[in-house]
């Protein structure tokens, strides 16, 4: 009986609780911060650095199929794409389309 539902129990405890306690802590912390407080500047900086660390790791150390592609290709596609995005007025669609096109072209070129 327990064995049947064990995976669900693991998901609730080691997944839901392990994640949402931090969300709840964020509510209690954020509820005390004023919108223009010095502390919120710091919290914003930490949140942004965290998210970007996760993001950059997805490019440098990807999971799955992309892990077999050359690092220079992924860095080049993301870097050149981001430079084009900055140079052309920072439109998100450009910032997504250019790196994707570069990656697809590069994968095809190296015969991936």
């Amino acid at each position: 009986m327990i064995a049947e539902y064990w995976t669900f129990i693991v998901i609730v405890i080691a997944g839901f609780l392990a994640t949402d306690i931090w969300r709840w802590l964020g509510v209690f912390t954020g509820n005390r911060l004023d919108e223009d407080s010095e502390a919120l500047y710091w919290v914003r900086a930490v949140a942004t650095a965290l998210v970007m660390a996760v993001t950059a790791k997805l490019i440098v150390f990807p999971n799955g199929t992309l892990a077999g592609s050359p690092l220079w290709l992924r860095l080049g596609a993301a870097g050149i794409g981001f430079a084009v995005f900055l140079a052309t007025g920072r439109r998100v669609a450009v910032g997504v389309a250019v790196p994707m096109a570069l990656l697809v072209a590069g994968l095809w070129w190296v015969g991936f």
Partner: protein
Amino acid sequence: MSPASDDRSAFFWFFTGMRGLLSLPALILLISIVGFSAFALESGLTRAEAVFMSFAIWALPAQVILIGTMASGANIAACFLAVTLSSIRMTPMVASVIPEMRTRRTPIWLLLILSHFIAITSWVFAITTLRNVPREYRAIYFAGFGVTLTLTGTLVVAVFYDIVSAFPPAVAGVLFFLTPVYFNASIWASARQPVVRIAFVMGVVLGPTLALITPKFDVLCAGLGGGTIAYLVDRIRRDRLRAGKGGRR
């Protein structure tokens, strides 16, 4: 304002939030979730378990880590530790959005429920669009987006669970690249304050670097360290600016 028109505005803002589902970020996330369902299937989760996990956790990195530790045969305490370390980032993410989302009258239980729907995509959505919504409707506006996105994402897992394995692997690889590339562009485009742009650069540089040095705590160190350095650099910049203005006077 009469109560009736209040209700109408609340509905209006809820549906405006829901419409965010048709935006680029939501579509990119839903495509990444297609990739997750393939991963769940390959790792031996049943469809019901994958669906339940998606709704209950609603944070792709945590889901991938939990599946990974479960598959490696780790016990529940080890799974909890691995997942909870990856989820500490939720605290500053939620804390940085809450002051913009609430009014003085917003009940805390509502914010606690809404916080479950904050993950990277909805965080970007919140920091980008909340400022365009009248303050008293921001919570309901976010609920319209966040709840709809989570339910749709969960539905995507249910539907695509056994379809994706038929795709060629190169397609999955290319789809994987969408998420980081989208975050790069959207977070930079949404940065109003220089401190966010400095923190952006710190995270990008420190994330992969620290992954080589302290693989278990890399994201945490990059966030706390990089964020604090960004804050200090920005603070010096602001102080100089203020001193410069004072000097000219």
